[in-house]
């Protein structure tokens, strides 16, 4: 546990909290980007360079932009007068707190079983490419199919419907 971990963990948690708590939806999207960046840096800190850069490309590059587009297309940036939280917010908060309590209890109880420092694994992009086109080629093809289906599906769902086509 070093200083870098604490800084990155604080950045991620603060970004996540701001994304959930802020009133203005555009500010929420920006805070979400900070949380994604913190998570990507945590991946890099865990010696998972490929996953870290994939996180930056996919989440900061694509998902955050999509979220901002959706907010601006739906006038979601206007803060409603009667609050941003649902009237059942107390129940939701209780469920989330209970989930965190159980998860935290499980992690702390299992602390003796968790391994300590181990040598940093050396993973090159070459190895990842060989694994993706060797052992993991079937999941890769399925993900490719899924992304194509999601692309077509998202366009069809969001497409304008013609008024009363004959």
């Amino acid at each position, binding site marked *: 546990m070093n200083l870098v*971990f604490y800084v990155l963990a604080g950045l*991620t*948690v603060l970004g*996540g*909290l701001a*994304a*959930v708590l802020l009133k203005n*939806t555009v500010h*929420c999207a920006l805070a*979400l980007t900070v*949380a994604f960046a913190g*998570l990507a840096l*945590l*991946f890099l800190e*865990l010696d*998972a360079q490929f*996953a870290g850069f*994939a*996180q930056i490309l*996919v*989440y900061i590059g694509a*998902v955050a932009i*999509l*979220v901002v*587009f*959706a907010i601006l297309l*739906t006038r979601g940036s206007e803060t*409603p007068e009667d609050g*941003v*939280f*649902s*009237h059942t*917010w107390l129940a939701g*908060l209780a*469920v*989330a707190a209970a*989930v*965190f309590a159980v*998860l*935290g209890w499980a*992690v702390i109880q299992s*602390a003796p079983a*968790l*391994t300590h420092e*181990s040598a940093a*694994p050396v*993973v090159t992009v070459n*190895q*990842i490419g060989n*694994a993706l086109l060797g052992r*993991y080629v079937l*999941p890769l093809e399925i993900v490719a199919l*899924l992304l194509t289906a999601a*692309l077509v*599906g*998202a*366009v069809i*769902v*969001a497409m*304008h419907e013609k008024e009363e086509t004959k």
Partner: protein
Amino acid sequence: MTPLGGYLLVAALVFAIGLAGALTRRNAILVLIGIELMLNAANLNLIAFWRYGPHPEALTGMMFAVFSIAVAAAEAAVGLGLVISIYRHVHTTDLDEMNRMKG
């Protein structure tokens, strides 16, 4: 606290924050943001277990996380498309006002 325990606690905290956001916010887009945070917390768990697991050279955890990122991106695209489609029908993204399934 071992390093793995620290990462697992951070992931649990991010997951709880995302869950709280998904359950308490009224804007549909903010609910999707909460779901994205939960997916990311799961990815952090996968990477942490891969890094401190017995066989990091097998690349299993990292591959799982990379595929999970791809699936989450597809989920975000379809989810936001649905929000835009619903907005066109009812002219709101407020989930408390969406109380009927008929268009």
